[in-house]
């Protein structure tokens, strides 16, 4: 994933593990850049699904 603020690339899963969640029981739906702390929304499932279809067609 590329951070929208500092444009650095980071691993979404690892970033989520590193983030100290405000509430460990609730997925906040955002991903925090480990470099600058900027938060971007997680890619919705519908978009992931569309991307999968697009990749299959290719």
């Amino acid at each position, binding site marked *: 994933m590329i951070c929208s603020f500092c444009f650095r690339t980071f691993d979404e899963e690892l970033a989520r593990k590193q983030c100290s969640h405000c509430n460990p029981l609730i997925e906040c739906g955002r991903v925090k850049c480990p470099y*600058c702390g900027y938060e971007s929304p997680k890619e919705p499932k519908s978009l992931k699904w569309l991307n999968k279809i697009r990749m299959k067609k290719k």
Partner: protein
Amino acid sequence: MPVKTTSANPDRGEPSGKSRYKSDASVPRVLLVGSPNVGKSMLFNKLTGRYVTVSNYPGTTIELSRGLSQISDRKYEIIDTPGMYSLSAITDEEKVASDLLLNERADAVVHVVDAKNIERMLVLTLQLIEAGLPVILVLNMADEAEQLGIEIDVAELERILGVYVVKTTATTGEGIKTLIDRIPQVRAGRFEQIDYGSAIENSISVIAKQLGEQGHVSRRTRALLLLQGSCDYAGCAAGDGGSPGADLITNAIRDCSSQIEHSVHYHITFAIQEKVKQIVRQAVSFPGAHVRDFRERLSRLCMHPVGGLPILFAVMYFGVYKFVGGIGAGTVVDFLEGTIFETHINPLVVRVFSTIIPWQTAQDLFIGEYGVVTFGIRYAIALVLPIVGTFFMAFSILEDSGYLPRLAMLIDGVFKKIGLSGRAVVPIVLGFGCDTMATMVTRTLETRREKIIASVLLALAIPCSAQLGVILGLVAGHPFALVAWAGFVGSVFVLAGTLMARLLPGAKPSFYMELPPLRLPRPGNVVVKTYSRMVWYFKEILPLFILASVLIWIGQITGVFQLLVAALVPVVNAIGLPDKAADAFLFGFFRRDYGAVGLYDLQNDGLMTPNQLAVAAITLTLFLPCIAQFLIFKKECGFKIAVTTSLCICLIALATGFLANSLFNLLGIAL
């Protein structure tokens, strides 16, 4: 350490092979390092072929690929390290890569960079050379750089850096042969030492003298890492943390920090960046120099204390006021609210519920003044969603253009006067999306003082996206009311910040960031970002709107709602607002946007003059943060600070509203 073998197609950049080997101390070791997505793994597969193992780095879940390569009749162990931007590690992946470089044997360090973005990548090259490591600089994706017309003078780069430089295209294998030839001949770079200024240089000398020999990394680099806090004593000094040397080092670090204006990291990063710019000017030529010059000039203008302001105002006027206020809160809301809900959905829902539910009280839960459908769902879909959607679109365009980091640099000077640094732009900008989350992001700020100032300012004077959108929609038809609102809220922001900066003790913050390129926003990125935010927001807001409708319904049945509203009526009257505005203020504590939407209905019913509109918008913007933000504030800054701040905010909001109303009346201003 779990080990697994992998098999796949090396031509696709995947590790392949069924064989396994054990790491052997007599086998020379090559580390592949570099930022993510520069083609390291592809290069690794080209170098290693079949003999690959993938294992977790000890104590982590980070995977490392190790393989063997036959070079000049000798076996070499090749290690593909996780992506890293700098030796001062931040992420877990960077920590692993940095640990490998600092503590493990490396007979060659191949730094792979994306030739297209060489300017952003040479920082690490300089750090590696400064560390005394045997570096080979690989300019990968050379074909793409050439297609873009970027010309890199390899001989000149080799002369400046004193290391081998090889152009490769890992996908086609071009340049790999040259790289293989260079690996056995690798040598440490002979680069002119970077001068970090007398205070830092003196501290480096003191610290370096205390450091023992450790690995292949120079004492200077280990001293630099210690000074920046990127490495602990045990990690960098190979000694006992309680030895006299440790005390001397601690003193040197403290002395250095007290002698320089900004943080050590700031000075070091700035010096390296300047060196990189100088090298790029000497060895790289870019196509369409006039386009690059224009971008460079525009980038500088965006950050200029005087020149940057007109750009900022243009962005705010066209991006936020015209687009969000005019199109989002005007055209789209009119259509959804007036045409879809008022004409079609509401009458239908009222008919259906009146037929199937005979009891008035139960009907009110769904179709009453604050019913789940006629209030909760209608507000969320017809009012908040279009406003927030257009706001998110404008915000995504700004994000994708690379303007936000420049905005951070622009307002760094102003922020310093209120005890913050440009780094605080991240939570402040995020606050315009959601203040609650932004309060949590204040954790990234350097000092506790900065954290408290930013959290208070977020709670006091930064409206969240929905509230901002609705307020802009409200005052869009009255430009003077908008100016009055911006003037009062801006003044409170600056005054409160200045006051806190003077009252709260603590070190002054510093800020420097590597700037990403300024570019035209990509439509695909803007659509994905806007859609992702809208989905997230809608998921969060709809249940809350419905819950609030239910709570109000319960409050109305029990009489608590009327009681609270009645208590607020004298307060809103005191600042010149009609009785009905008390509802909006009460809703505002559930969610800030809820309160703003309450004002929207008052305006639609013609119950407020533009002056009252401005006073209500000012007071509500400065009013108490919503419940969620209060809870996070308490978590971040403590219960006492949260309660005291909330009380102060309440008083400041009402006092400012009172002042605005009195000023308008005294001076006979009609907005």
